[in-house]
């Protein structure tokens, strides 16, 4: 019996202690007509040896193409130590640290994590994670509405340069509470949120303005102006940021005159493998004044009976297990293990490692772009500064080109046609620090061939 340690003797002794004759009697409170006695659709058990072989085969079937897709998930080198330490049994198989004295490992780690995230974002406080970047944005929007005492409505300005899946996800989550997401268009020249478009909302009751930096096109928004506009209009500023980018870019806490009010995003670039989209984690930081509106676990430092430093979950009165229907969110389980890995990642990489990783990724993308625009039929779509990702326009259908490149084992980027048909045959491209000169050459050669076929 897989994973069941009972011997026949054990079972007999246990039944006797309970005072019954068979295990089946334990289910006698279940109405008989509801009971089932087989699960014919479930395949018979296979052992670890067999599932091992099966999983190797399935993993191998998907090969390992050379990947230049970013679009919200970025391939970075992860030191081997990160996941070897994170998957130690004591981290891997423990629960949410409710019993603080028996969970100091996880609790201290989260406290350190919170410190690192506030360091990166320039914000005051951080929670212990949400599910992912997209759902973190929905929580940020709901939090922004709660936190903005000056706004009575539920109107949020949402630029179209924000990741379209994040927008869709946020819409799906917040619409049930009557929140309105108002689109703000981007400039077709620069790819940036148009200040003019924003000014159309001057003086309106807006709970918050969302700004993604770098935005979905990789372009760098004019965050200072946007933030100041928001504050001038009594709106909060919600920053959606790539935490790796923050190793080089101005942190949200320093945007404009007062800084962003909430910063969130996806922690994936900090130590989580691509892994088909998850598990990653959503992070969220805010100004101290808003901490009681923040969803998710928060760890605080305190002392024990002897005055020694120790760590506990704190401000639990925000959470569903205490406040139930009045909680800031329904979140319970978060993405703890990925946060564990990410904390170890940040500790190993340090400020210098993150800085160089971000810089190398940016340099690689820029080098790639330079090579590609020299190919006939390839041009950059947006002028202006970007970070480690940018949009190209091709003179052939993007899907055909990507298919041809895939034949050579190269994933050429993310096709923007579905979400931004107005951009024509547009392709979002990213080359992180994992790419070598030879990789960039391989991309350029594959693209040339695909376009000249």
């Amino acid at each position, binding site marked *: 019996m897989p*994973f*069941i340690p009972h011997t026949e003797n054990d079972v007999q002794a246990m039944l006797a202690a309970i005072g019954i004759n068979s295990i089946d009697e334990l289910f*006698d409170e*279940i109405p008989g007509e*509801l009971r*089932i006695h087989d*699960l014919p*659709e*479930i395949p018979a058990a296979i052992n670890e040896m067999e*599932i*091992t072989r099966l*999983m190797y085969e*399935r*993993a191998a079937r*998907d090969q*390992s193409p050379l990947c230049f897709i970013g679009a919200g*998930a970025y*391939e970075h*080198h992860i*030191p081997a*130590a990160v*996941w070897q330490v994170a998957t130690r*049994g004591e981290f891997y198989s*423990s629960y*949410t640290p409710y019993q603080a*004295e*028996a969970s100091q490992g996880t609790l*201290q780690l989260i*406290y*350190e994590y919170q410190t690192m995230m*506030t*360091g990166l974002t320039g914000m005051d406080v951080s929670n*212990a*994670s949400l599910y992912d970047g997209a*759902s973190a944005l929905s929580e940020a929007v709901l939090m922004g509405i709660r936190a903005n005492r000056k706004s009575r409505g539920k109107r949020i300005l949402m630029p179209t340069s924000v990741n379209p899946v994040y927008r869709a996800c946020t819409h*799906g989550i917040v619409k*049930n*509470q009557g929140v309105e997401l108002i689109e703000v268009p981007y400039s077709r020249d620069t790819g940036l949120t148009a200040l003019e478009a924003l000014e159309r909302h001057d003086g309106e009751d807006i709970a918050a303005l969302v700004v993604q930096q770098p935005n979905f096109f990789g372009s760098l928004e004019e965050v200072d102006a946007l933030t100041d506009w928001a504050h001038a209009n009594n709106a909060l500023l919600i920053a959606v940021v790539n935490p790796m980018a923050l190793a*080089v870019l*101005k942190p949200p806490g320093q945007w404009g005159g007062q800084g962003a009010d909430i910063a969130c995003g996806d922690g994936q670039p900090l130590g989580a493998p691509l892994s088909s989209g*998850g*598990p990653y*984690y959503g992070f969220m930081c805010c100004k101290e004044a808003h901490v009681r509106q923040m969803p998710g676990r928060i760890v605080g*430092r305190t002392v024990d009976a*002897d005055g020694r430093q120790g760590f*506990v979950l*704190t401000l639990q009165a925000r*959470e569903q297990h205490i406040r*139930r229907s009045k909680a800031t*969110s*329904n979140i319970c*389980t978060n*993405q*703890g293990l990925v946060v564990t890995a990410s904390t170890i990642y940040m*500790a*190993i*990489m340090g400020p210098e490692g*993150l800085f160089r990783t971000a810089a190398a990724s940016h340099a690689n993308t820029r080098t790639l772009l330079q090579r590609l625009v020299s190919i006939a039929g390839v041009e950059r779509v947006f002028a202006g*500064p970007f970070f480690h990702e940018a949009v190209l326009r091709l003179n052939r259908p993007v899907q055909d080109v990507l298919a041809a490149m895939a034949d050579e084992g190269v994933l050429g980027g993310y096709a923007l046609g579905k979400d931004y048909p107005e951009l024509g045959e547009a392709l979002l491209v990213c080359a992180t*620090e994992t790419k070598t000169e030879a990789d960039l050459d391989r991309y350029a050669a594959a693209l040339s061939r695909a376009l000249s076929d």
Partner: protein
Amino acid sequence: MLIFEHSLEGRHTASQMPTAVDGQSAAAALEDIPAGQLRKSKPLLPEVSELQAVRHYTRLSQRNFSIDTEFYPLGSCTMKYNPRACNSLAMLPGFLGRHPYAPPRFSQGFMQILFELQEMLKAVTGMRGVSLTPMAGAQGEFAGVAMIRAYHEARGDNTRDEILVPDAAHGTNPATAIMCGYKVREIPTDAEGDVDLEALRNAVGPQTAGIMLTNPSTLGVFERRIREIASIVHQAGGLLYYDGANLNAILGKVRPGDMGFDVIHMNLHKTFSTPHGGGGPGSGAVGVSERLLPFLPVPIVGKVNKEDRVLTLKDPAIAGQAEAFRWLDEKDLPQSIGRLSGFMGNAGILLRAYIYMRMLGRQGMPRVADYATLNANYLMARLTRQGFDAAFPKRRATHEFILTLKRQAKTLGVNTMAFAKRLLDKGFHAPTTYFPLLVPECLLIEPTETESKQELDRFVDAMCEVLREAEASPELVTSAPHSLPVRRLDDVRAAKDLDLTWSAAG
């Protein structure tokens, strides 16, 4: 020591520095970015060597209790063995390296796994469709209630604004209802732990969107009149939501679909043994009955034939088809409640659940329920015989059961919290305390099927020891723990003098 206290200006781990750009040219690499966009000072991150980081976090890990090191009978959390193969196989380079937007030709191996997982989850729950995208139980709940809402709205039935929730429900249930824009009405529990049917009958009406139930309930008993509840709610036009946190108790024994539920979430990180990871990640896959199929969150893995027609398992043609899998999205399910995450959910966790389910197999599923229930009933029998009070002594325990220390708290001055802390000293993680809220001074005890009788017996011994200590020297118990890295921590101070981040100043 905190990792920051090991930090020293200018130290870094050279073997982890990327190639292309060295210290100097990193600045050059950024020359095209306007100075106003750049960071001025380096972020507060630790500057330590790889050894320092490894040593620090290895030592920290040793300050945790975990399944791998201790019995962890935390009620409602199903802390069963997390097979190590699930971890190593889910972390094969081929899986870790796959970009979520990799095209189908580089994804068939991965997608076949997800498809089979969907089918297996349908089979064990008796539902008609499954979406794997919710990233934890609470998000599954959100998806479920949002589907209930979408269903009513699609029918133009816009008066329903209330979700019913038993008073024993987990906090995520009412919180979820609110997130979905509903009001919450609590339904009381009767003396035997079942939903108070009278109260339910009085509560339902045209305002009822649905009810959220856990069965077995969080009281550790099976809701016997579930069919009646279903018909009361259905007749009022409401739908039934099943909180699957306790699925472990009934796996292969009875199916939510057969009980009359319209929508359920599963906690794969409980029933299907993906790790809790000190707080997550989990997976809250949702299943639905026929009428909610159109509303499932996307993406879902579909099996298609050569003409790209989506096949279902019931499709007689499917066996003969060359297998091909693709994502079903908003185009395929135009009424979908949409997306809940940036990509498709916690893929790596789904792989782990799949591996575990394949190793359990058809025969293994009901055995999970058998032995989880046997262990709980055995513990309940032994502990009540030793002088502990069960909350529902006349009921069968399911996979978990409740003790109440009300009597001890009164007579000895030793409350549940103290009792729990003292158990830590004995090398056992404490059961869940003070949940569900309606049973005073309660311990919710869930041993799971992967613990041996011998471990349970040791736990009984420890419980009895603490009880004797509580009688003989209560201050020993109330001042516990004594043998952990820290003694009792001051929660009040933590919430009052907020200290949420470290700073050099201290």
